[in-house]
Every structure is written in C-alpha cells, then in structure tokens.
C-alpha cells in the first residue's frame, strides 16, 4: 500500500484496518493523537490546504465588502476587527474549514465528516462559540474568549476532531 493511498484511507472516517498481516506498515485508527497530528499536518499542509486557504481568504475579502442589510434582514457590515481576526485564524489553522457569514456579526467556520461528525467555530469579535457533534449526535456547546492562545486552542480542537476515535 502506498503512502498516498494510506493517507487517503486514514482520513476516510469509514476506514477500519482489518489487515492483521501487515500491521507494521499500517497505523490503525487507534493510533495516538500525536500520530494523528502528524497525519493531519502532512495531509493538510500540501497544495489542497493552500488552495482552500486562498479560497477562504478571498471569501473574507468578499465579506468585508458587504454593506448593511446585505442579507435583506438588517445584518450589519462586518468590522475590520472581525475580518482580521478570522484572517489570522485561517492562516494558523491546521486544517481549512468551510467559511460562511452569519447575519449576527459573526463568521462561521465548519468542519464536517461524512459520518455526521461536526465541528463549528462561530467567530465573534470578542469570543468564539464552539459546537461539536459526534457521530452519535451528542452535542457540546461552549465558548472561548479571545485570548493570546486562541489559535492553539482551536488547533487542538481540529486535531482532536480529525483524530477522534468515537
């Protein structure tokens, strides 16, 4: 099995390693989180990640141009502070999310797997609301203040999301 194929399988949520004859070459889904981090880092550090990042940064530029009532429901335009915060977060995130504006002065980052697992960061100027849903649809919602280490905190969640075993 080539490394490239192995990488694809690793990130297929439905992949289960049943190959008991070649365990030396296959890192199973029970691999440690540090190994998952290595995989995530490798998987998302190539052209795919850069292309998605470029696309996401372009979206932020588009959001920056939106005028008041852009959604026909009296949404405000987005502040430079929020756009810059999102720009910095996108630049530091280990994996690129899907990015969407909301009509309540926030910008939403989403990660989703085919098995229903979901991770959402709703970025406001002064805090970030987190929503995590596992494949059994258990939900967790909590809030982070914007602190100096917020990028590390979000990256921990992203790593955990892509390495989660449940």
């Amino acid at each position, binding site marked *: 099995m080539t490394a490239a194929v192995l990488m694809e399988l690793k990130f297929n949520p439905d992949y289960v390693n049943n190959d008991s004859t070649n365990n030396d070459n296959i890192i199973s889904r029970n691999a440690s989180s540090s190994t998952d981090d290595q995989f995530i880092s490798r998987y998302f550090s190539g052209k795919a990640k850069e292309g998605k990042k470029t696309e996401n940064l372009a*979206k932020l530029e*588009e*959001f920056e141009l*939106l005028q008041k009532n*852009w*959604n*026909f*429901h*009296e*949404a*405000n335009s987005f502040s430079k502070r929020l756009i810059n915060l999102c720009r910095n977060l996108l630049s530091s995130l280990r994996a690129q999310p*899907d990015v*969407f*504006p*909301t*009509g*309540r*002065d*926030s910008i*939403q980052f*989403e990660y*989703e797997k*085919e098995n229903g697992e*979901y991770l*959402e960061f*709703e970025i406001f100027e002064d805090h970030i*609301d987190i*929503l995590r*849903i596992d494949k059994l649809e258990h*939900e967790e*919602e909590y809030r982070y203040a914007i602190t100096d280490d917020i990028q590390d905190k979000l990256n921990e969640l992203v790593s955990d999301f892509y390495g989660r075993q449940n």
Partner: protein
Amino acid sequence: MISMDDKIEPSEKLYRMVLRKPDYWKKENGKPTSAVFKDSSGCSVDRDGQRPAQLIIDAFNSRFGSEKLKAIVCIEAAKCIEIGTYLLSCPTPDNEYHAEIHDSNSQKQIRSSKARKLAKSCNVVYVN
C-alpha cells in the same frame, strides 16, 4: 387568508430564502449551512398561509429578485417546535406572512445546535 394574529400551527410550513452571494450552499449535502438561520433578530421566514409552494416561490423571486436567490428552503413548524425553537407570527405592512424563528421565548438569536438542526431538517423547494 389566514389571520396574522394567529398562533403558528404545527401543521404550517415556514419558508426561508438562501442568498446566492455570499455563498451559503454546502455542495456535499445539497443544503444550506446552518449560518443561513443565524440572524441578529431571530430568523425571518414566511408562513405558507395555505398558499401553494409555487406561489410562495414566485413571491420570493418578486420581492428579492431571482438573481439574488440561490434557493428557498422550507421547514415544518412542527419540526421547529420539536427542535425547541419558538415561533412568532410578526406580519409587516409589506408581508403579511412574515414570521420569525427564535431560540426561545426569551432569546431571539438561535443557538448553534438548534440552527444546525434546522439546516439538517429543512427541505429545498427551489434551487436557482
């Protein structure tokens, strides 16, 4: 014609437009992101008012312009109630069918978990 003072019945359908720009569409599942249900004053929708779906679609196109619309989605009021949101009829001079989905009777903005459920439960009735 329905009375706009009426409580929204579980049997009613609620319609929400999805803008083309910015892009709210999730190609993987052919539905909008939950962000489309997140407004500062709850989530504006139109009640069906016993109108056929095509009439409602025409009304949205007429009001906002078809070039602005990516899609129109619909969700049953009963589903909104099951999710735990609070439905409020609030007709305006321009739109007697206008209503809002709130998080609860004391909080307008819909929390993320409920917005996510709305997005997963809605049906796409029109794609442009």
